[in-house]
């Protein structure tokens, strides 16, 4: 079975931070669809197609902020890992927090990577490079496991 096209789901409450990622992805000419949820609850609804949201087709790569209202990044990651239908989702954490506590919690929930957001141009560049590389090289889980 061919791997499906990876959809990027950005989970970010801050509009400017969200636009930063959108611009990054656009400038890198990444053609994968990019969707956005504003917190963990909305992300789960989009992943499951509940509460009137259209279901995001698998495979999905989540780009998750840590600090968000209602359900934060760590809570979202745990919920995704606990759901058999979502557990194969590729997750990257995007955050301003470089605290060890947040980092440990993220890796405990088996995230693929942990990216500290900053102003520095080269870090945004390396984030874009990393995404490009990941989308190019890494074969995503198949769309349907059955």
């Amino acid at each position: 079975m061919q791997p499906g096209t990876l959809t990027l789901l950005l989970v970010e409450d801050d509009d400017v931070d969200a636009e930063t990622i959108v611009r990054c992805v656009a400038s890198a000419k990444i053609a994968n669809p990019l969707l956005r949820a504003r917190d963990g609850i909305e992300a789960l609804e989009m992943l499951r197609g509940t509460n009137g949201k259209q279901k995001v087709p698998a495979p999905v790569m989540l780009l998750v902020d840590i600090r968000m209202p209602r359900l934060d990044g760590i809570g979202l990651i745990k919920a995704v890992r606990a759901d058999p239908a979502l557990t194969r989702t590729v997750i990257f954490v995007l955050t301003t927090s470089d605290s060890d506590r947040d980092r440990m919690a993220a890796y405990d929930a088996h995230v693929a990577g942990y990216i500290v957001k900053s102003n520095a141009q080269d870090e945004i560049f390396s984030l874009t490079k990393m995404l490009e590389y990941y989308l190019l090289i890494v074969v995503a889980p198949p769309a349907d496991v059955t």
Partner: protein
Amino acid sequence: MMTTVFVVVLLICVGAAFAIGRFYRPPDPSAAVPVHADSQEQGVAALHAAESAAGRHEAQLRALLETASDGIHVLDENGDVVLFSDSFARMLGYSIAEMSRLNLSAWSPEENTEDFAATIPALTDEVSVAQTQIRRKDGSWLEVEVSRRSVQLGGDTYLYRSARDLSERNKIDRENRLHLQELERINAELDQFVYVASHDLRSPLRAIKSLAQWIIDDDPSVDAKTRQRLELIQGRSQRMAQLLDDVMIYARAGNIAAAPGPLMSAAALIAEVAVTLQVPSGYRILADRSLEDAQVHRAPLEQVFHNLIGNAIKHHDKNQGSVRVWAVDTGGRYRFFVADDGPGIPEAYRESVFDMFTTLKPRDEVEGSGMGLALVRKVVGRLGGQCGIQDSSGRGVCLWFDWPREEH
């Protein structure tokens, strides 16, 4: 201070009591009359008149028993009082006359007389110390520390004991523990506050900077004046971000729990700092030979050198210069010196430059948060050292700081 006084007094009293015990024979134990200074006045006077060695010892013993602040008491094998200091009677609330007729069981009921006799031989060689409680005449209990030792005199065994009132010390200990807990709580709260504040402030700053950049990137019609103002917005945002970083570093600096890093020579550390500082060409860092013998842990000394050498270069008024670093071994510590050939610091500011947020030039001229030397002072102070600026006139400034010596 009080504790030291107590200890010294105890040592003198116990030591003197034993010394006297060796040389001074107590009254014939068969007579079994408790001896106390006041009740022996006539006898003592007679001995004084004779000016015998025994008389001098008796006078010394009497003075000792009157002045000792610890409750010295000597017991025979039955636990009956043979000798005691005035303070011991006061401690228990008995008069001198009452005290001289007492048995151990009066204030220490759990020390059974038979068991007591059995424990004496085991105590012969060393002074042993134990914490216990003694019962006062009014029935109240007193926390004490008792030092004791037995002494053989003319075939009989006597137990020499000295009781120290611990109630005051224990009360102070309890208060100190409470204060310490309170301090730890306040510190943890402050750490959390600094952390949260700096992260929550960083996020909008980053947004401001990005938005200004997007206007420049997306709108080709932006004129030069607007563009310059947008760049100023970015510059100010960057300055505030730097300030937040520096405040965070300052708040965390000197955290004793942090790993000190590997042990290395100060010369190797300076070489590393020179690399991370990206010293512009034209400036030279001259590491003296004395740094090769100074063994130091990397953190947090790296930060101190980074700030001092970085400052010297940043504030230099010429496009070439040199920074000289050397160490003097002052015995228990090293004293490091960092000297430059820059414009120097006017005498009036030599104290205040170590304060937080102090800069000597407008920030548009020399970018800086004014936290660099404050951090140096904090780190050095945490390790019990001092820092300062050497007196000099003319060009250049020479800063020094103390650093603990690593034993190895």
